[in-house]
Structure formats: structure tokens, C-alpha cells
């Protein structure tokens, strides 16, 4: 009697979860194997894949385009992830009060995050336009010379980073959620003990918020290594490959020049990098992430 009940519940469980298990088999598991196979072939979708061994991987090791791509993706990630976490954090600090109208400010800071990426790209191309854009007008107003923004290889990266920082509201709401999760009695006790504002910030807020820092870092790294839309909608990799990020390069190899085997091997290298970075952050997290209620 009892065991048939258990079996029934198990069958129901598999049925309820079947959309995602079938989905993962169809759209993740099988494609992952297939892509691994493609990465060892010459494949242009018109003709069937031809096995070439490790040729694609040898090629990418000696491909300056790949190294350039990896370099700029790394630089972008290294600057924009910490910078946008910091800005999101500062905004969240400002917003974490019960003041009249605070909800409106939250909305305003989050608004850029919901702007569709193509509109974002077109809009920022206009802002950065050398003659008719606002960016250079602003520089002029504070007495600085005009900047080349998207039109020169050296200025593309800072321009993309600034554009990305406009969307720091994404990390802001996660910080806010984290602040709300800190129990008020901790602060009350500290005030009774005479702890100063700074002291409370460093010994309560920061340690209690470390899980959020961790979450934001992981999400930021994973997202930033796969930057695609905001580049395609603005510079599409140019000028002179200066914004040829990994995902942009993979897309172009796969769908513009139809080197799908080579693109697959690039995708696998991207995957391994993301995996290693994530594993690294997870490893170091043991020493700096504090979980409340965790037994040490």
C-alpha cells in the first residue's frame, strides 16, 4: 500500500518535471555533445561535418584574432564587472532608506536595465556621435577636448564600459535585497554598544552582505564573458576588430563565414574559461563569504 503510493508520487514527480528534463536533453545535453563533435570537424552546414582531429584547436592557439578577442574580453570583464558592482552598491546605499519618494528613485535607476539592447545601442551611438552627440558637448561644457568614442580602436573599450555602467541598476536591486536581509537587531545591538556609523558598516553590513557580493561577482563574470548584444548593436566588432569580443567572434565565424567547426572549438574554449573562473571564485569564496547560521 505504502510503496504503491510512493511509486505513484515518483511517477507524478517525473511527469511534472518532464518539460525541463526533456528540454535539457533536447536543447542542452544533445547539443553539447554535438558541439563537441563539431569542434573536431570542418563544418559549414551545407556539407556534412568532416573529421579533422584537433586542427581547430591548433588553429585557434595560433590565431592572433582569437588572442586579441580573449584579451579584450578579459580587459572588459576586469574593469566593467567591479565598476558596475561598485556603482550598483553605492546606489543601493543611497536608496536603502525610508524616505518619501525613494521608490521613484529606485525605478529611475533600474529603468536603463529594461531598455532593449538594440535600442540601447542605437541610442548610445547617437550620444557618442562626434558632431551631433551629447557626449562631446558635455566634454566641451567642462572644457575638455572632444573624444573619438566608437570611431577609433583605442576609444571603443572605454566607450563600451561607460555604456555598460549605465545599466548598473541590475546589480543595485540585488544589493538592495541583500541589505533588506540583514536583521535589524544586529544594528540595534551595535548602537547600544556605542558603535559608530563607520564601524557598523564595516563589521555588520559588509560581512553580512558577502553572499550578495559573491552572487553578483559570479553572475557578473559569467555575463560579461558573453557580452554580445551591446557590441553587435553598436560597433559590431569594429573598428579594426577592437571590439571583437569572444561571443562576437564566435557568432561571426559560425553565421557569417560559416566556419561552424572552428566556431564550436572557440565556444568550448569560452566554456572552459568561464568554468575555471567560476570554480576559482567558488574556491576563494570559502575564506571571505560569510553565511549566517553556518556551522564552521
Amino acid at each position, binding site marked *: 500500500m505504502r510503496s504503491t503510493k*510512493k511509486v505513484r*508520487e515518483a511517477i507524478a*514527480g517525473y511527469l*511534472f518535471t518532464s*518539460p*525541463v528534463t*526533456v*528540454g*535539457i536533453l533536447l536543447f*542542452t545535453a*544533445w*547539443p553539447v555533445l554535438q*558541439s563537441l563533435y563539431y569542434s573536431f570537424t570542418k563544418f559549414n*552546414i551545407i556539407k556534412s561535418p568532416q573529421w579533422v582531429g584537433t586542427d581547430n584547436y591548433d588553429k585557434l592557439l595560433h590565431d592572433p584574432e582569437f588572442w586579441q578577442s580573449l584579451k579584450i574580453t578579459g580587459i572588459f570583464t576586469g574593469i566593467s564587472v567591479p565598476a558596475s558592482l561598485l556603482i550598483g552598491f553605492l*546606489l543601493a546605499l*543611497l*536608496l536603502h*532608506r525610508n524616505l518619501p519618494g525613494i521608490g521613484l*528613485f529606485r*525605478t*529611475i*535607476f*533600474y*529603468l*536603463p536595465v*529594461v*531598455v*532593449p*539592447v*538594440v*535600442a540601447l545601442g*542605437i*541610442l*548610445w*551611438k*547617437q550620444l557618442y556621435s562626434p*558632431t*551631433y*552627440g551629447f557626449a562631446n*558637448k558635455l566634454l566641451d561644457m567642462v572644457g575638455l577636448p572632444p573624444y573619438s568614442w566608437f570611431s577609433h580602436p583605442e576609444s571603443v573599450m572605454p566607450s563600451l564600459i561607460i555604456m555598460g555602467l*549605465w545599466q548598473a541598476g541590475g546589480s543595485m*536591486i*540585488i544589493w*538592495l*535585497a*541583500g541589505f533588506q*536581509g540583514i536583521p535589524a537587531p544586529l544594528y540595534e545591538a551595535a548602537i547600544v554598544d556605542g558603535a559608530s556609523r563607520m564601524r557598523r558598516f564595516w563589521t555588520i553590513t559588509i560581512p553580512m552582505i558577502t553572499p*550578495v557580493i559573491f552572487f553578483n561577482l559570479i553572475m557578473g563574470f559569467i555575463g560579461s564573458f558573453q557580452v554580445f*548584444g551591446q557590441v*553587435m548593436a553598436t560597433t559590431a566588432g569594429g573598428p579594426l576588430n577592437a571590439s571583437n569580443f*569572444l561571443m562576437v567572434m*564566435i*557568432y561571426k565565424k559560425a*553565421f557569417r563565414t560559416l566556419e*561552424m567547426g572552428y*566556431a564550436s572549438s*572557440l*565556444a568550448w574554449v569560452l*566554456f572552459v574559461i568561464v568554468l575555471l573562473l*567560476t570554480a576559482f571564485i567558488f574556491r576563494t569564496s570559502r575564506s571571505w563569504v560569510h553565511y549566517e547560521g553556518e556551522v564552521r
Partner: protein
Amino acid sequence: MRLPVKSSLVLYALLLGSAVVFLFPLIWMVARSFMGLDDLYKVPPVVFPTQFTAEAYSEIWTIKPFLSYIGNTGIVVFFSVVGGTLSAAFCAFGFARLRFPYRNLIFGIVLATMMLPGAVTMIPVYVLFSKLNWTNTLLPLIVPTFFGGGAFNIFLLRQFFATLPHDFDEAAKIDGANLWHIFWRISMPLCRPGLTVVAIGVFMSTWNDFMGPLIYLSKEKSFTLALGLYALSPGEAGGATIGSITTAQLMAACSLAVVPVILVFFFAQKKLISGTVVSTGIKG
């Protein structure tokens, strides 16, 4: 925390200053969409139009078939929101309320898929849809959403379902309800806030989706709004550029794509950015 008047004045000043910075690009977009040619090509540029004209908004419809783009986007969004939300709820209920062998392992695999870069599966999935002759139709953008609606959404809804007291299930069972009733009539209505958040999230991500349409759609009659806009953008979009489009028309088209998400966002912002939903997600 209660603040003295002086420091709250400083705080408001800081907030206002940053609000202007964050709003400015959107103000620029809308302001330019109402400009005539004289204002658009002033050097140095002006922020606000000296003469308001809404001509750009009436002209864009003849430049590109925006109605057809909007129709296509509407179809994708509608089916994705329904399919994504329902199938995420379905799976989340299974993971939260039912016991079966390897449940935690399967759930772990679901979460792990979030870390896999889209680049890895992109090419084989494209090959699959192209073999099915689904390219240049909306099917590749719709069909996958019916398979679970994304790991993050399943995770979020699982948190909601897990907090419902088991007594409800027991009481319903005594009244003769089966599992389907418990799911559909009892659990789903109680999880409305979570379902709303998921539905809005799916709405925004499909409305804003760019990479999917870029990969699968190359014929204009199947374009979504995001892709149509991209084809309008000077200098890109696989050569499909319009030489004579004005900045005002371009900004009007952008505003057209931005306004619906902003409206939905305003309507839902209390739920989305109050942080409560996000925090149930993080704490696990």
C-alpha cells in the same frame, strides 16, 4: 533609519543628481524624436527641440513594416509568456512538492545549465531548427520556451511552492482533490506574486531578445521589432541599411521599442524592485 534634516537634504541632492545622469539618455532619445531637421543638425547639439514636431512618429510606418515587426514580436511574446510561465510552474511544483528518486540531482543539473554559455549549444540547435525548416519562422523563438521556461524561473517558483504549508495539500486530499487540483486550484493561486514576476521577466527577455532573431530570421516578413530596429541602424545589420533615415525617425523607432517595456515595468515595479522576490531567490 531616521535621518536628521540636514543629511536627508544632502541625500536628496545626491539622489537627484544621479537620477538626472541615469535618465538623461532616455530624455535625449525622446527629445530628439520630436525634433525637426534644423534642430537635429545644430552644432553644438541642443538637448530640447526648439520646435516640437511629431512627424517622425507618423513617418516611420512607411520606412519599414513596423506593424508587421510588432505583430511578430507580439506572437513570440504571447506564446513565450504563456509557455514559459506555465512550464516553469509545472516543473517547480514537481521539484518543490513531490518526492522522487534523483530529484536533487536532476534539480542540480537544471541549475548547472545556467552556467553553460549559450555559444556551446547555439550551433547544434541552429542546425536542428534549420533541418526542421524552421528558420525564418517564429517557431525557434517560441518552441524552446515550452520546455521549462528557464532554470532561473524554475528556481524562483520552487522557492515559492516550497513555502506553502503541507496542511493545504492534506486538507485538499481529504476533500478528494487529486494532484492536478492541488497544483492548479490551490498552489498556483497562492503563488501569484511569483508567477507575475516570472511572467514579466519572460515578457521583458523575449521583447528585448536580439540574438535569437538575429540567428534565425533573415527575411523581413519574419523580423521581430528588435531585429527590424537593428536593420534600421546605420552602418550595421548585414548591409540592410536605409540611407535617408533621419535621427528623429531613428529615435522615434527606438522609443516605440522602449515604451512597452517601460510601461510594463512601471506597472510591476513594486514587485520587481522591492527586493523581496529577489531575496527569496538568493537565500536559497
